[in-house]
């Protein structure tokens, strides 16, 4: 409900079956406190599978970022806003007497910092750092955390040499035995963000879409009331925001229409775009809305599952990703791996651009975020777990993170040390996390 001169942060536009949270508006800041108001800090993790072609990932220098490597090239426009971190290690991704199964182990260990139990039945890893944070600050937002992905996320069966698919297909672990499967279907995510929580069957959705209006139509009344209390800047912000929501709706409708034309019986979720890049964009557009509207401050995004054999025909690569990474140093296969790695970074860079475009207080949504883009394996051909490809983007709010650099830590420095430092930034303080040996030095200006 919209009342008063200082707008409540938790103001919603409501309509039948619809709840739209609002972005951070100037009107939400009391005039006297304008200079001290702070947008929340967001923390997220974007995970890409099967390691990297490290030849084309690694940089051969430290300090201020200069020319980026081929795979990181799409991040070139944002290199002042990123930290490239070297030598971070996940010891618990290593075999440690458990034999083969690096894909299962590395993903299960990635955010938990723990050694996953080699099993297909009684799974066990550890509580992931995103969920530790969500447990502490999740009550401040509608969703304690969001878990997103772009690929099949079956939770049972053997996905790598005796490791349950629960390890390869999830990043977030609510407890040491309970992973949180990612949402893959954009329509399901849309309804979760803006709907009343009731999932519709594909048939029901199709019927509804025939008569459906935009959800914005249902909140017209609230929107008009709100606008009377907003200044010109906020009105523009609101208009842009609602346009983003409408654009997502259009993308969803297009995907659903395309899917119906391609094969009405296709097994994948009804609203999943056939095109990888479109799917990525649609999910991150909605994630952006969720962060912008403070629906959540914590997220994980499993771009594709660890060990995936997804083909990238849009790049002219019919081979599966995982088999390609076992390239035996054949140049033609390594080239394809590099192309896939670069393609992923390109999608991520597109999202960064979007986050930077959203004003929030004196900065942007991007400035108030810290997002790890990384892999749980270093080189998919070697299956190693040291010097993991890791980029930390965003400033963590209030220019906390000093970006634009490459920092190479000492060998064996636990990745868990980075996560422990990020937890600190979210005001969640713990003596240790996973296999941490301390905090990670050098991230901030202090």
């Amino acid at each position, binding site marked *: 409900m919209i009342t008063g001169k200082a707008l409540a942060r938790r103001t919603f536009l409501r309509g039948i079956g619809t709840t739209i949270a609002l972005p951070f508006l100037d009107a939400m800041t009391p005039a006297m406190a304008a200079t001290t108001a702070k947008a929340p800090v967001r923390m997220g993790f974007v995970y890409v599978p099967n390691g990297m072609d490290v030849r084309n990932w690694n940089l051969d220098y430290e300090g201020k970022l200069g020319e980026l490597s081929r795979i990181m090239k799409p991040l070139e426009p944002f290199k002042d806003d990123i930290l490239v971190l070297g030598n971070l290690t996940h*010891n618990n991704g290593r075999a440690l007497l458990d034999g083969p199964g690096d894909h299962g182990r590395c993903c299960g260990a990635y955010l938990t910092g723990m050694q996953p139990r080699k099993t297909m039945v009684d799974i066990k890893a550890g509580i992931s750092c995103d969920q530790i944070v969500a447990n502490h600050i999740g009550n401040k937002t509608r969703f304690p955390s969001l878990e997103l992905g772009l690929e099949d996320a079956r939770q049972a069966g053997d996905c790598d040499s005796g490791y349950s698919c629960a390890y390869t297909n999830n990043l977030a672990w609510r407890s040491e035995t309970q992973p949180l499967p990612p949402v893959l279907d954009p329509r399901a995510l849309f309804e979760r963000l803006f709907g009343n929580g009731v999932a519709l069957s594909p048939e029901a959705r199709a019927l509804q879409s025939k008569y459906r209006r935009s959800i914005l139509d249902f909140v017209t009344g609230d929107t008009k009331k709100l606008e009377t209390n907003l200044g010109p800047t906020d009105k523009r912000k609101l208009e842009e925001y609602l346009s983003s929501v409408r654009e997502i709706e259009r993308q969803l409708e297009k995907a659903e229409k395309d899917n119906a034309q391609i094969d009405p019986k296709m097994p994948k979720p009804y609203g999943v775009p056939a095109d990888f890049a479109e799917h990525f964009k649609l999910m991150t557009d909605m994630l952006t809305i969720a962060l912008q509207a403070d629906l959540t401050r914590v997220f994980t995004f499993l771009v594709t599952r660890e060990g995936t054999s997804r083909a990238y025909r849009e790049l002219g690569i019919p081979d599966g990703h995982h088999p390609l990474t076992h390239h*035996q140093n054949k140049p033609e296969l390594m080239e394809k791996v590099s192309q896939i790695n670069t393609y992923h970074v390109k999608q991520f860079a597109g999202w960064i651009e979007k986050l930077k475009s959203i004003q929030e207080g004196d900065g942007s949504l991007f400035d108030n975020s810290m997002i790890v883009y990384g892999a749980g394996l270093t080189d998919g051909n070697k*299956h190693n777990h040291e010097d993991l490809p890791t980029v930390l983007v965003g400033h963590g709010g209030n220019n906390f993170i000093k970006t634009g650099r490459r920092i190479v830590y*000492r*060998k064996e420095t636990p990745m868990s040390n980075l996560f422990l430092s990020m937890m600190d930034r979210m005001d969640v303080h713990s003596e240790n996390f996973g296999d941490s*040996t301390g905090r990670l030095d050098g991230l901030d200006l202090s």
Partner: protein
Amino acid sequence: MQFPGQGKPPVGILFDSDMGSSIDGALALALLYGFDGKNEARVISVSVSRANLSSAAFCEAVGRFYAGAVNGGFGGVGRTLPVGLADYGKEREETPMLSVPLAKMTPDGKPLYAHGIHKLNDTAEVPALIRNAFTSQYDQNSIAILAGPATNYAKALDVAGFKELAARKCRFLAMTGGAFPDGRPEYNIQTDIPAARKLFAEWPTPIVVSGSEIGEALAFPAASIERDFAWSPAHPVVDAYKAYRPMPYDAPSGDMSAVLYAVHSQEGYFKLSEPGTITVLDDGRTKFTPSAQGKHRYLILDPAQKDRIIKIYTEIASAKPVPRVPRFRLKELKEKEEKEKLLKEKEIPVPPSEVKPPAAP
């Protein structure tokens, strides 16, 4: 890295030293790699408490000399073990026993003893390195050796869960330090008294100490350097030995005694004291208090074993490097290949090439 289904591998050894402070550290490392080559032990961690890059660089150069680039460890097959280096405390000075061998070049201008340590982040964070080394071992199939001040192991004790892990994985700690039974001050203890106290108080396994009287009584013969190592036209330990003091000289071998006891504790090279508790006094003296429940013992030299000990020192430390037969996951890989029909030979690391001694300068 140890894999199941192939029987227990040889005992894994963690070696922490103040490499560069005295020549017996280099001799001890040579002895350890000699045992490694005979498959009687496996080096799983090398770390240095002497804060100088050359100390770590020398250790890596010796490791590469003996094991080539195939030392698996937990770093993975085909990777050289990272060397841990203390980055706490004041930086220590260069010393000829390190700088001379490291400065030697081949005729074409390359380092005679190759290593990859040129800056601090070429070395490993010590507490993580030591902890990670234990995680890769079967229970009770590793032994920690301390051939220097207790600085690094004391730091490791502060890592969450380390004590429980060490208690599970480690049989005992073999160290040089102190003097027994008289307790006179000794360098390793005096250099970091708080760390020594912490180690004796908190290390979770039995500790066996080789006092300075052992090393002094068992001098490593200079003649062996000239004779037994002659098979190699260039040897990093020989160059270190010759640079440490003017030749010929016999060197105290305290650190070697810790290695020998660790690898062959059951073979009667040394006698053991009764159990007790070692405490460290303010001036660096050690005090041994007998106690049936004590976890500490010290080595006692049996004069009858002296020649036998010197013989094994010289034979093993001067042994030629042996190409390691990798114990890696051939069987498991084959199973995986059959299952996925994708990998075939793709994950099998290239077998180690024969390790050749560096060419003469």
